[in-house]
């Protein structure tokens, strides 16, 4: 629930008669954020969907700005390994139920020793997404208190979803891949005729 102290214009809800925050479409919300965050760029992708590129240091304030404007559904957080540019791209998807529009905020962080401020303080649901990305990509989230082991049990290798993770080599080292029991097969079942 959005608090009353916000300076946004409010409209009267026809059913309940209460004053609720105005539904702000994605483009206008992005413009509001652009005014406050230096170095941000926005791009309209289609009706009701806006992409926003922001510096990684301002991600927390951008998230709270959007939440204040009614974008209170944190849909997903994804990470993309841009190995050619030596970057990780973090994508934060937000949805406004009132305006029924979608905003996704992108930010790049360096691939070497990756770390980005946690948005847990703004969106509680980000905890699990950040845990997963910590495990799969090795990105650190200062501020998230719960970056413990998530899906991978007893994992000792590098983060597996990174592009430079050599899956086949890992599989060959970890699991024995071999033709099983070739001597037990009759001659007509094997390529070499039983040899």
């Amino acid at each position, binding site marked *: 629930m959005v608090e009353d102290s916000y300076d946004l214009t409010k409209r009267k809800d026809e059913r309940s008669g209460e004053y609720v925050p105005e539904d702000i479409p994605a483009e206008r919300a992005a413009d509001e954020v652009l005014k406050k965050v230096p170095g941000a760029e926005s791009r309209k992708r289609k009706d009701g969907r806006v992409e926003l590129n922001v510096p990684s240091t301002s991600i927390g304030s951008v998230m709270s700005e959007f939440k204040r404007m009614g974008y209170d559904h944190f849909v997903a957080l994804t990470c993309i390994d841009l190995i050619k540019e030596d970057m990780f791209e973090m994508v934060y998807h937000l949805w406004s139920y009132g305006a029924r529009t979608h905003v996704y905020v992108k930010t790049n962080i360096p691939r070497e020793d990756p770390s980005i401020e946690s948005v847990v303080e703004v969106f509680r649901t980000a905890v699990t997404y950040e845990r997963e990305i910590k495990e799969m990509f090795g990105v650190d989230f200062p501020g998230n208190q719960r970056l413990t082991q998530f*899906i*991978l*049990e*007893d994992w000792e*290798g590098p983060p*597996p979803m990174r592009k430079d*993770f050599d*899956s*086949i080599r*890992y*599989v060959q080292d*970890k*699991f*024995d*891949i071999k033709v*099983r*029991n*070739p*001597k*037990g*097969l*009759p001659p*007509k079942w094997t390529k070499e005729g039983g040899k």
Partner: protein
Amino acid sequence: MSDDEPKGGLLDQNGIPITNLPKRGFVRRVADWASAKSMWLLWYCTGCGAVELPPSFTSRYDMERYGIGPMATPRQADIFLITGYLSVKTLKRVVRSYEQMQDPKYVLGHGSCTIDGGMYWDSYATIKDVGLYIPVDIYIAGCMPRPEAIFHAFEKLQSMIKAGEANGWRRYKENYQYYRKNQDKVFKRGPDWALEEPVLK
């Protein structure tokens, strides 16, 4: 069973024939004959193979014809049917369930994922061959195997039990160090899971 089919259970993992097959007395043979026709099936549905089992249970194919019925717990089951790929995490639970089952116990690997990983052959998360970690009596090839293939495996298993050849549980105890070495390579046993080396009685 024709002569050119491999007799499952007679070779160990390295292709070495198991020579110390137990001599079965008359009572044991009768008991094997009887137990082959009355078995409880634990179906461990890890992958997509689970969809083939409802038709096997129900009236279309009717597993009860063979005296085989589904069982909910490992401790009361005779057959352990592993339907599909196993992630490393799941393998841990599979081995734990397998060790809880009473002897004699039989493992069926269902689908190509249990044989060599199938379409997950290069995945970091799934194991490639179940037989490295627990002994498998019969593999059912296919992706997915049809219920007919499952019933072929049941018939084969019954004939193996009657002949005293379905001795995967015996192999597990005889070669416990081998299986344990493979298990330790992919997962860790916690302090709450300290199993003593099983003794073959």
